[in-house]
């Protein structure tokens, strides 16, 4: 038990906003319990990444920004959950604004949780703590 907890969780972030990528890596890059994979910019790249990953090399969790070009968060979520190979990877959707529609749709499609993008350092740590508790 203690052993698995010490292995840092591989986190794949799908985010197109350079500032938001910056915040994420800046605040969470130091955490020893996380292994941040190179970020991808949209849903298509998430699927590409997963297809290239060899069995067992899947991320431990995926965080999808809802508002992405080409393939948004919900669309990407649907692709992942409809693929027998990837469907068990825990997926989280995060967005600047989470309304009832986004929450409902995300949960229906199989997201673990829907999160609002934090506005402070503490917010980022709190968000990732919540995520780690849910996987």
């Amino acid at each position: 038990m203690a052993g698995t907890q010490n292995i840092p969780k591989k986190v794949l972030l799908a985010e197109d906003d350079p500032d938001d990528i910056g915040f994420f890596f800046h605040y969470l890059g130091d955490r020893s319990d996380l292994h941040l994979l190179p970020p991808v910019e949209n849903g298509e790249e998430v699927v590409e990444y997963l297809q290239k990953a060899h069995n067992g090399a899947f991320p431990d969790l995926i965080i999808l920004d809802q508002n992405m070009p080409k393939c948004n968060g919900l669309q990407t979520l649907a692709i992942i959950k409809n693929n027998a190979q990837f469907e068990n990877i825990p997926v989280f959707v995060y967005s600047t604004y989470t309304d009832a529609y986004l929450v409902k749709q995300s949960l229906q499609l199989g997201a673990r949780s829907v999160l609002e993008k934090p506005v402070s350092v503490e917010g980022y740590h709190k968000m990732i703590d919540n995520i780690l508790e849910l996987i």
Partner: protein
Amino acid sequence: MDRNIKLKDDLLRELEETRRQLYEAKETIEAIRTGQVDALVVQKGSTHQLYTLKTADHTYRIFIEKMTEGALTLSQQGIILYANSSFGNMIGMPLSSIIGLPFEQFISKDNLAFYKTLFKTSWAGDCKGEVEIFYNGNRTPVQLSLTVLELDEGIALSIIITDLTLQKNTQRKLEENNRQLEHLNHTLENSNHDLQQFASVASHDLQEPLRKIQMFSNILKNKASGNLSNEEIAYLEKIIASTERMKALIIDILNYSRLSAVDGEYLPTDLNFVLKELVEDFELMIADKKGKIIFHDLPVLEVNRGQIRQVFQNLISNSLKFSKDSVPPVIEISAKLLSEKSIVSGEDENGDYCLLTIEDNGIGFDEKYATTVFSLFQRLHPKDSFEGTGIGLAITKKIIEKHHGLIQVKSTPGIGTKFMIVLPLKQQ
């Protein structure tokens, strides 16, 4: 062969009998026409019926003269043999000048071909058609009803002429109004849609840069605070506080615009439970101000629970916010049934409406603001003295209106504020 002879004899006898009856009838008619007889007794079943000139011809003559429709009799050549006074009035000509003229003279050129067909077909059976009467520069839309009459002098055509001017005008007006209404509806739908779209897009898209301002201000504050003076730190904090306020505004305006988009579900809801939950939510604030919320015997109303909860939440939070510093806030919520949808309606235990009163002992406001407080972004106090976006009461009013209800407020500065809400017990 035998049977055929008998049949022929029977037929001949029948023919003879019919001929005799016909002769008799002709004789009678002739007698009536020449004035020898003015009444006939006809056996009808077991009773006798009296037919006189007065009850038949004369009555009909009066009837035809008095009716508002024009009535004409035309010869087979289309010449006017008889016209009633309504027709005379219709074209503004004395009857004496009308008799003897061809009727087609009064039909507008555009309709002449159609009238001629109508005239031709009418001899084979009743028919109707709409034409325009044109005379002395006046056009009158009419309906013609043509029927063949078998008179002693031969056959003739009777035409009843119904003036359609009023009907056509009404119809035209109705069509015009309908067109306008449709246009307005369309415009309204479009602008409603645009508004929803605007509120949604603006609110979502406004939040992204806003969050960036929040983030970078926070970073700056954390990283640079050692090098900044107290004044400079205060500026940064003002930026952060402003972004938080703007976020609250955006979310409120988004909620407000959503209210018109979504039609909620109306379910029977016990307001006592709603209030109980709210009192728990406000527990800290109430304890902090040593306040009290009193309610009892609230009704069960058919409402959208979430929205009605929002109404009470807004009103209670206002009352707590605008309480007097020196006096603990007391908020009293009561209800009674009304006979009709009006704030001043009399109480009626079996009424279909409910008056909810939410009364506080707060700072109150000048009565002249009683209607403006419900407007969007209306605030009576400077931003730094009381928190709030100025959308709460606008949302409250919109919710009540969506529930087909009424809301009014009475307030006295220094005494308190009283909100009155009328809601139907059931939504149609």
